[in-house]
């Protein structure tokens, strides 16, 4: 298990050091070994795991702060990294950005946290929601006996991520479906690879211990229901175009009952209070590609290139895409560029070897065009220009995977509010991931 945990600043000075096990030997030696061999190493870091004199160091870096876990045993490496990320999350939740100043200002708190969430090198409950009930910056308030046992049962209990007795005047929840769509397209418009990686982020402000059930247009669920009541779904399928989507894989926050998902494919959970990532998913089939890029590059002699790029938006006319940016690479020996575009602004950026074309907003089912003349310096370099792909950035108000939230039901049997009383907000944002068209 983890033998010790150190936090360093960018100079390699230790800000926090906590040793859990004797086997890592002299604290000083371990601390120095990492500084000398990793932080001060001449070369770029080649691996997040380093073995120095039979001692293994795991590290992650946040801005210019290094977190290192040390061990001499055959620990679960994935667990150590997950723990280090979790440690960062917890610290951020307590005092914001992880910086040298914040760490120095909160070192007592950090020691207290480290004592709680790591025991003899074994990670313990590290949900901020639970930790905040008894590790506070103000020193512990005197608690009643009930409060104490409530804390301990929550920390060790099945629902370690939520405390009891939460009350809101207005029960409200926000669902954000955030997707990034990735594409690689051939110059002829053939899709070489495309996938969407999505996240469902939930912000819940609900009283008590609400039992939630989340439903989306998952193909497997729809088909299963279809078998049961064939008529009903048959009708609704006629009603609106694309009905269900095939999800390649998804992972869930620990509050979701996985065995239930595995057997019934239903997503039920008691949410943590506040913001958390409910699920992540990946789809590769029937992706709506919000933009199509049509490139045309013509070499006119040896010193001139003519480039024409058309972009077409491929979604409902009533929707608006934002923050559109098209990046057209230019050869290294470019001497000058003339650009004409119908919409937005375009500029040749010599330092980036690209023409950058920005459009603030664009509605669906529209198209726009840019044409450019690129003057080239004559070179005797035989090597041909490799023509890097044209890349694109954008944001659209729908989910390119086609994912739809069908329902989010809330039940709180003990308190007197029902599903109807909860105010729910759903938002879809689709962003470009790596969205490239070869030319």
């Amino acid at each position: 298990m983890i033998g010790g945990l150190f936090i360093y600043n960018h100079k390699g000075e230790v800000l926090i050091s906590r040793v859990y096990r004797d086997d890592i030997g002299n604290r000083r030696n371990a601390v120095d070994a990492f500084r000398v061999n990793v932080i001060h190493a001449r070369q770029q870091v080649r691996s997040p795991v380093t073995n120095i004199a039979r001692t293994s160091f795991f590290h992650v870096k946040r801005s210019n702060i290094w977190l290192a876990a040390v061990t001499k045993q055959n620990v679960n490496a994935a667990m150590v990294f997950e723990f280090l990320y979790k440690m960062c999350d917890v610290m951020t939740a307590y005092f914001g950005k992880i910086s040298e100043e914040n760490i120095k200002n909160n070192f007592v708190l950090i020691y207290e946290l480290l004592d709680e969430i790591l025991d003899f090198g074994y990670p313990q409950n590290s949900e901020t929601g639970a930790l905040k009930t008894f590790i506070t910056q103000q020193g512990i308030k005197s608690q009643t006996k009930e409060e104490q046992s409530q804390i301990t049962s929550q920390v060790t209990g099945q629902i370690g991520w939520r405390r009891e007795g939460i009350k809101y005047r207005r029960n409200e929840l926000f669902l954000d479906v955030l997707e990034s769509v990735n594409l690689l397209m051939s110059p002829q418009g053939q899709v070489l690879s495309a996938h969407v990686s999505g996240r469902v982020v939930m912000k819940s402000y609900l009283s008590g211990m609400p039992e939630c059930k989340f439903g989306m247009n998952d193909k497997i669920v729809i088909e299963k229901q279809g078998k049961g009541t064939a008529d009903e779904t048959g009708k609704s399928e006629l009603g609106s175009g694309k009905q269900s989507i095939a999800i390649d894989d998804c992972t869930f926050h620990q509050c979701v009952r996985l065995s239930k998902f595995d057997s019934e494919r239903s997503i039920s959970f008691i949410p943590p209070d506040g913001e958390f990532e409910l699920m992540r998913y990946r789809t590769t089939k029937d992706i709506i590609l919000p933009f199509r890029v049509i490139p045309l590059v013509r070499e006119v002699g040896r010193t001139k290139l003519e480039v024409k790029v058309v972009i077409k938006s491929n979604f409902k006319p009533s929707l608006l895409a934002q923050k559109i940016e098209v990046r057209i690479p230019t050869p290294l020996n470019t001497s000058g560029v003339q650009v004409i575009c119908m919409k937005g602004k375009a500029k040749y950026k010599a330092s980036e070897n690209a023409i950058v074309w920005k459009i603030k907003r664009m509605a669906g089912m529209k198209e726009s065009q840019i044409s450019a003349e690129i003057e080239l310096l004559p070179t005797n370099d035989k090597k041909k220009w490799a023509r890097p792909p044209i890349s694109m950035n954008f944001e659209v108000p729908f989910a390119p995977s086609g994912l739809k939230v069908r329902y989010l039901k809330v039940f709180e049997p003990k308190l007197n509010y029902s599903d109807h009383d909860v105010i729910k907000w759903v938002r879809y944002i689709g962003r470009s991931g790596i969205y490239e068209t070869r030319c």
Partner: protein
Amino acid sequence: MTDSKYFTTTKKGEIFELKAELNSDKKEKKKEAVKKVIASMTVGKDVSALFPDVVNCMQTDNLELKKLVYLYLMNYAKSQPDMAIMAVNTFVKDCEDPNPLIRALAVRTMGCIRVDKITEYLCEPLRKCLKDEDPYVRKTAAVCVAKLHDINAQLVEDQGFLDTLKDLISDSNPMVVANAVAALSEIAESHPSSNLLDLNPQSINKLLTALNECTEWGQIFILDCLANYMPKDDREAQSICERVTPRLSHANSAVVLSAVKVLMKFMEMLSKDLDYYGTLLKKLAPPLVTLLSAEPELQYVALRNINLIVQKRPEILKHEMKVFFVKYNDPIYVKLEKLDIMIRLASQANIAQVLAELKEYATEVDVDFVRKAVRAIGRCAIKVEQSAERCVSTLLDLIQTKVNYVVQEAIVVIKDIFRKYPNKYESVIATLCENLDSLDEPEARAAMIWIVGEYAERIDNADELLESFLEGFHDESTQVQLQLLTAIVKLFLKKPTETQELVQQVLSLATQDSDNPDLRDRGYIYWRLLSTDPVAAKEVVLAEKPLISEETDLIEPTLLDELICYIGTLASVYHKPPSAFVEGSRGVVHKSLPPRTGSSESAESPEAAPSAGQAAEQPAVIPAQGDLLGDLLNLDLGPPVSGPPLAASSVQMGAVDLLGGGLDSLLRSDVGGSPAMGGGGGFAAPGPAVPAGMGAPLGSGLGDLFDLTGGVGTLSGSYVAPKSVWLPAMKAKGLEISGTFSRQVGSISMDLVLTNKALQVMSDFAIQFNRNSFGLAPAAPLQVHAPLAPNQSVEISLPLNTVGSVMKMDPLNNLQVAVKNNIDVFYFSTLYPLHILFVEDGKMERQMFLATWKDIPNENEAQFQLKDCSLSADAVSSKLQGSNIFTIAKRNVEGQDMLYQSLKLTNGIWVLAELRIQPSNPTLTLSLKCRAPEVSQHVFQAYDTILKN
């Protein structure tokens, strides 16, 4: 007010000031002072002098202050054991506190204070806390048992804490269960034999229930523990798998990887025909792909594990090539790992895509990555034959870029392509030669020299090229020197007339001017070969080389199986067994995959099965490519060569007269005139190593050398047991038969002594065998030339062959014999030792061995102990070789010698063996793998007999 100010106090007299503040009456001031102490401690200042003052602050109801004091105590108690005792009272008192948080804090901290005297006081509070009503205290106490065990294992056992801990596995609170499992697993690791965890279907059921309810970390502890369980049959394995698969959707990657570990392990037990097996395979792919969207550090861990999984079960990810394509912003360690996996997944179906990607990568910035990409193109060529041509042309394109390291890397891989597809792509040699000057790395230079030497006859100016390298011979690295030596000898053998001077020059450089023993030895060997028998030299040096195999960097199968048991852990990241990087007792236990125990199969393998599965396997790595010397001796050595007498060959050479007087004169001046050999214009070996006039010694010297390399063609007799009585006289009307079996020069015989103990003369002997397992039959009739008079005996050697009819006997080596004479027919049966069936060509190629070892399913492996054998590895190896058990590779792993051996039976069955010899232990461990596991037992007996005699 912020706390960062505590980090900046560096005044003199600080300790003194702190002391005063610690003893202040004001609570706030006290707390401030303790904070300052902790800050100093963190930055590495020695504040141990304040021990008594800090401990005095312990008695407080301020929890924050208390925690700080505890933190201080944990750090300094060891250096001040006597003073630490002062704290005991408070701890004991705190363990009784009404607040469970304080009780837990006390027991948690006390466990971290590694002072014997304190440990004694810990027992009582710990016992109470283990049974505390509050789960928070119990879960903390569970871990505390592991802490205490680390300090004083005996104490934990004596106090009965282990039993209490076991009880906690049935606790109602999932987190208590998880921590108890973690603690028990850790303690069990240091007592490999104790069966502490005592996993059985009931306890497994409890763990699986807790798995659904505990924290993400608890799930990891439980899954890691489950992975050590050995289900009793495939049905149980399947039901556990079914309950573990939901974990594959957990957001925590460590939970996913640990679940993958359990599934990969238990899958071994499932029959491939099962529907569920296919379902499970399909379920594994998506979560593995999803791991690649985690943070880069975790991606790295995942990729290292996927590398193992792809080797073990390539079918899981064979369609997922695209997700391993490198992204521009991936950190370098992720890029390099992805590249590795891409090559593993490359197949004819996706090769075009892979090549296009690799070509892109070869133009990136990071030098290591670019090199690896170029190398990967070469590996694709070797792996997928159809793509070889495209790969070569891609490599040529890359060479045209003239980027120095790209060119060098490309040349190194093109050499490998030549080895794989000889006589196919030689047209590119001209292009390669153009880049000769830009090569500055030893590996690339060596590769280029190899190419020039190998294809010397097609390169017009090969001699000039090699000569240009020779100028700076002594500045080259050993690798290049060795290659240059070999290349020039090759050149000489191909174009003897023009290159004599060159070869003389290089031989003298290598033998006389070099301090490197490898180089000198190789030089001498060539020299002697050339001087004794140029025809043999040609056969040796220009022998056809075995083709290189597709995947040279596969992890050796037993190690791979062990690493699969360590998925998710550091071992899987390093690709090394834990014993390679963990000190002390932990990690010594070797894990192995469970054998398949499908209900139908278990009956068939008798004694072999139990030992195979349970016994721990040793990590065993067979070097994939021989070292340089091995290369020379094994690969270059074509047909069997024995050292012919020098005189004879020098006559022969006179006739051939490949060499004119040039070398001759050189030799004379070297040896200082050894007229004995020089006469016929032939060769003499150079002076230093071989004394003049050494016809026989030289010959035998060489002979010895070749014997060492594996005794190709040495026909030896295997071990013969003393004769024993097979048929006593009283059972056969006065005819006594004793005998034994032997194998000599490739033929088996039955050596019989017939004794007439009756009163009458016996005659008309005949013999017949019943059908037997290996078809043994007499190759000639039993010939007793004269009638056997009373009290007379006759010795007969009856040749046997193995072309008789076959019937499986029980035991396998049972032979039923009928002997007839003028009196009656008598029957007896005897057991023959299996080693008479070991044939002379039972030496397997290394690559072949590796592949076969991997190919034979694990359940066919049997393990045996050879007791009381205190021979060294070499002695064992030569002894076994006498009986046609051939050593293919020898390796030293952690001080133990591992011998990898093969043998072949007359009916073509191969048996592969791994023999582990520990220096101080007379018991050898023998693992046998064979497609017909029933022979293992008898092979083991053969080993036993051979080694003990």
